[in-house]
């Protein structure tokens, strides 16, 4: 199904940058440790004094949060120390990105707290700051205005979720994210994809995008006349299209359902009555278990909703169930889906009779603790009234099957209040200048420039950029050794990582390559030195000129003669023997040349 003509799409692209954490000195990566702590979060008044609707919502869930400590977390992630001042590298990156799209940078940046009490932030808020306003993005003829560019901290990764206990890990918390929000200027998924790609490309050109599957996540804003829906957590660009189409379909059916219900006369207040006695002899496991655990069965008529709950494309039943799930009530049952869950048609009809259902009426039935009944009722009513008002605006989560699920109402502005622990940041001229110098070019230009400047193929340049290695490359390569260095980075190191099943910190690799550069040692020497390091040699031992010197053709000849190496065996064997001598690095081309000469001798 194509998207309707009045579709408006906006994007919020979040990009993790690899410069350490935003408000402390922890690294970007860290293993999870065998230690944790638990917390509860309480909603507080925002700046304007009123609690925000979305935070109240979370608080009603009264959950315990457990946090697993990681090697790259400290007291700041644990909310046990105020943040340090902002990471200047992260700020500079945000400025460079702003400059790339002509966005106007604020002279003074205020760090804000955005209240989020789902536990994903230990403090109960996410720190975020508006860095720039305005500007626009062009890509393949599509243009989208920028509303804001923000620098924020990433949240915790969710590790496990149970009824009242949600477990998070601290490794991702506090990583800097650049958030670029566009105006709802896109009309189609393809346009949205083009714009999102352009943003990601610039970020790769900047060279600070973190490695990892979730380093770019986008939220998609979508509207087709029933209010704005914010779809969270679209990680793959390619799925935007399918997600939006599914969402458009959902809204269309929902609007149809509203029309039907309204035509029938609309809805009345729900009246839940206990119907447990009707199920005394039920064989439904769900019922038996529920009763055993002390729950009771309540049901209410849902006038005029029959046929729109779960028929054809109608899914009002699921809308209600999703809302209830947020307050930890599972398993709302409605007329239309029966028989199911071991419940029979006869049982359905008993309930229908007791509730005096008319032809167009549906019912809702809950197996819950009586304490929860009131909360369930008000949640269901709230949901139904929202739908009937044809205002479908809300926050939804993208699921793996490209459908979406209700998450919470849209967050309002009162969720935000100033981060009092961090003084307002004045953007200094040196910082701004330095950011300007590093403003990322468009990807194609940049690739061409790199290719030209370092004398490497466009393909190699692209690989360096897309694998997030461009900063490493430009940090050490020059016009002379570009080819060698790109080969080392693009090929040798991934091979070594694979062979030795481990990675070595770039700082150490860099030292090896610099040593070789300084001593005019070429590719084979570099590979030899790196091999030694990977196999466990100490740096002091590996960086040994005697081991790493490239042997000349003459030296190779002498070695072959002195050690009586048979030149008539294959080249791999000869190389192996020569290498085992540890007299220096052997260029296989030279050996091949010698073999050739030898062969020619033979044939002469």
């Amino acid at each position, binding site marked *: 199904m194509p998207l309707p003509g009045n579709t408006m799409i906006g994007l919020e692209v979040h990009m993790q940058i690899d410069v350490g954490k935003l408000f402390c000195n922890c690294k970007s990566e860290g293993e999870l440790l065998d230690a944790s*702590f*638990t*917390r*509860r*979060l*309480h*909603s*507080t*008044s925002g*700046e*304007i*004094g009123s609690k925000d609707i979305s*935070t109240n919502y979370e608080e009603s869930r009264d959950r*315990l949060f457990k946090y697993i400590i990681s090697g790259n977390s400290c*007291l700041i992630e*644990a*909310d*046990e*120390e*105020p943040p340090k001042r902002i990471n200047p590298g992260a700020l500079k990156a945000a400025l460079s990105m702003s400059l790339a799209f002509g966005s*106007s940078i*604020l*002279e*003074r*940046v*205020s760090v*804000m*707290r*955005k*209240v989020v*009490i789902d536990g994903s932030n*230990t*403090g*109960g*808020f996410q720190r*975020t*700051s*508006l860095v720039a*306003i*305005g500007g626009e993005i062009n890509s393949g003829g599509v243009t989208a205005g920028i*509303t*804001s560019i*923000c620098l924020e901290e990433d949240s915790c990764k969710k590790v496990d979720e149970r009824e009242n206990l949600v477990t998070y890990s601290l490794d991702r918390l506090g990583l800097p994210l650049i958030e670029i929000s566009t105006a709802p200027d896109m009309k189609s998924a393809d346009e949205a994809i083009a714009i999102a790609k352009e943003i990601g490309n610039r970020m790769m050109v900047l060279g600070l995008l973190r490695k990892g599957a979730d380093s770019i996540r986008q939220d998609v804003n979508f509207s087709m006349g029933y209010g704005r829906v914010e779809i969270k957590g679209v990680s793959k660009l390619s799925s935007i299209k399918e997600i939006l189409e599914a969402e458009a379909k959902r809204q269309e059916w929902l609007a149809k359902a509203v029309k039907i219900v309204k035509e029938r006369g609309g809805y009345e207040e729900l009246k839940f009555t206990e119907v447990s006695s009707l199920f005394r002899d039920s064989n439904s496991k769900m019922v038996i278990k529920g009763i055993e655990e002390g729950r009771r069965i309540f049901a209410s008529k849902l006038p005029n909703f029959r046929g729109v709950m779960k028929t054809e494309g109608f899914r009002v039943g699921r809308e209600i169930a999703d809302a209830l799930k947020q307050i930890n009530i599972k398993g709302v049952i409605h007329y239309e889906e029966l028989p199911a869950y071991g419940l029979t048609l006869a049982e359905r009809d008993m309930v229908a009779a007791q509730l005096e259902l008319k032809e167009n009426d549906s019912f809702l039935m809950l197996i819950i603790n009586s304490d929860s009944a009131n909360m369930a009722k008000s949640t269901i009513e709230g949901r139904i009234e929202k739908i009937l008002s044809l205002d479908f605006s809300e926050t939804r989560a993208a699921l793996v099957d490209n459908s979406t699920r209700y998450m919470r109402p849209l967050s*309002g*502005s*009162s*969720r*935000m*209040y*100033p981060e*009092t622990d961090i*003084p*307002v940041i004045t953007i200094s001229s040196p910082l701004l200048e330095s950011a300007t110098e590093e403003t990322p070019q468009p990807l194609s230009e940049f690739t061409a420039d790199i290719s030209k400047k370092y004398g490497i193929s466009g393909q190699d340049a692209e690989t360096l950029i897309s694998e997030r290695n461009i900063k490493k490359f430009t940090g050490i390569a020059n016009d002379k050794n570009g080819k060698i260095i790109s080969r080392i980075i693009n090929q040798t190191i991934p091979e070594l990582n694979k062979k030795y099943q481990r990675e070595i910190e770039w700082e150490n690799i860099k030292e090896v390559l610099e040593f070789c550069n300084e001593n005019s040692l070429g590719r084979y020497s570099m590979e030899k030195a790196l091999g030694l390091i990977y196999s466990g040699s100490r740096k002091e031992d590996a960086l040994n000129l005697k081991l790493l010197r490239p042997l000349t053709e003459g030296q190779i000849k002498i070695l072959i003669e002195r050690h009586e190496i048979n030149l008539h065996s294959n080249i791999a064997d000869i190389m192996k023997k020569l290498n085992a001598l540890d007299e220096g690095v052997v260029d296989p081309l030279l050996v091949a040349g010698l073999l050739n000469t030898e062969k020619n001798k033979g044939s002469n």
Partner: protein
Amino acid sequence: MPESNKPENGDIIKFTWKGKEMEGTFISIDSDFFNVKLENGYNISIKPQSFEIIKKGVSFAVNEGKGAKVSGKGKPISLITTGGTIVSKVDYRTGAVFPSLDIEELTSRFRYMEQNYRLKRVDFSNILSENIEPGQWVEIAKKTEHELRNSEGVVISHGTDTMSYTASALAFMFEKQMGPVILVGSQRSSDRPSSDSYLNLEAAVGFATSEFGEVGISMHHNSSDERIDLIRGTRSRKMHSTRRDAFKSIGEHPVGAFQDGLFSLSGKYRRKCRENVLKTKLEKEVSLVYFHPGLEVEDLEKSMDGKKGMVIMGTGLGHINTKYLQSISERVKGGMKAVATTQCIYGSTNLDIYSTGREMEKAGIISAGNILPETAYVKMMHLLGNYSEEEFEVLMKTNMRGEILEREELGVYL
């Protein structure tokens, strides 16, 4: 910009900046920069090219705690507020945190508290604890004494910075007390969802209804929102500047705990009495000196000038450089009291072991044993204020308010 035209806190303004027209709620001006809250919630701080007030707003003054002063049914508990992080609020104009009196926001969080307790809020002051003076300890003590007569116990919300000093002072002033006096603070201000104030206060109110006839501190046991310790005031110390579990019971296990909704007291404690006996005199001419290499005799002499007493934080067993002894000895002969404590915090002084200690004793310096330095300081003020000079040494070495550990177990250390 004419004064009359200046927007006020809360006004909705329209303004242009770098050619963009925007709208937002005006917050404040800070050297030509307008602080404005945009519709999306972000604050920006910009110099507008032009602006116009499109709607006069209601100034969002901070809620000064308009809630009822008494609420709930159940055991009567008085809550004396003295300021500090636990009742702190953000001043959205300056961005700073300042103390507020709106304790109701905390208490209303726990519905069952209203059923179990009748909480009475008594406003004492609104100051940060680093600014509290000994004179205010006396005022707090008097207010506490008054409240104890009509409540099961008293909870005092207090800034954490000098909470242990105040707790010690109250402990010494109350020779007898009719109910628990529990100080409570928070290390994460109440304006953040992760604040420790909720649980600390919930526990404090519970501890205040127990048999504990002493002065205690109710704070987190570890980094989790899991267990709250009741720490004897005279053995408490703030050991970390920022963590929730900053307060430690030094050299002894906490006297009580609150976990999973259950309160427990353990160890030895004084039970509450049928009457209050309050001794509020304090000798203020007392100094607390941190010994260290490089402290010259003249430096020390300045700290003793005009003082009736001095607590020295010595090294190890209480030692100080022997070069000071003559000077100290002269003043002790002149009537000044000198007490040695240890800057190690943990462990005891003992002037019997090394030659330095024996010489210190000869010079008239009294060993504080394992009294904490800050507690020894408060105790000295109390003793010099209320007892004769002759009683001083014996009382300093007598365990009056649990300030001396009769024995130190092996398991109670870092």
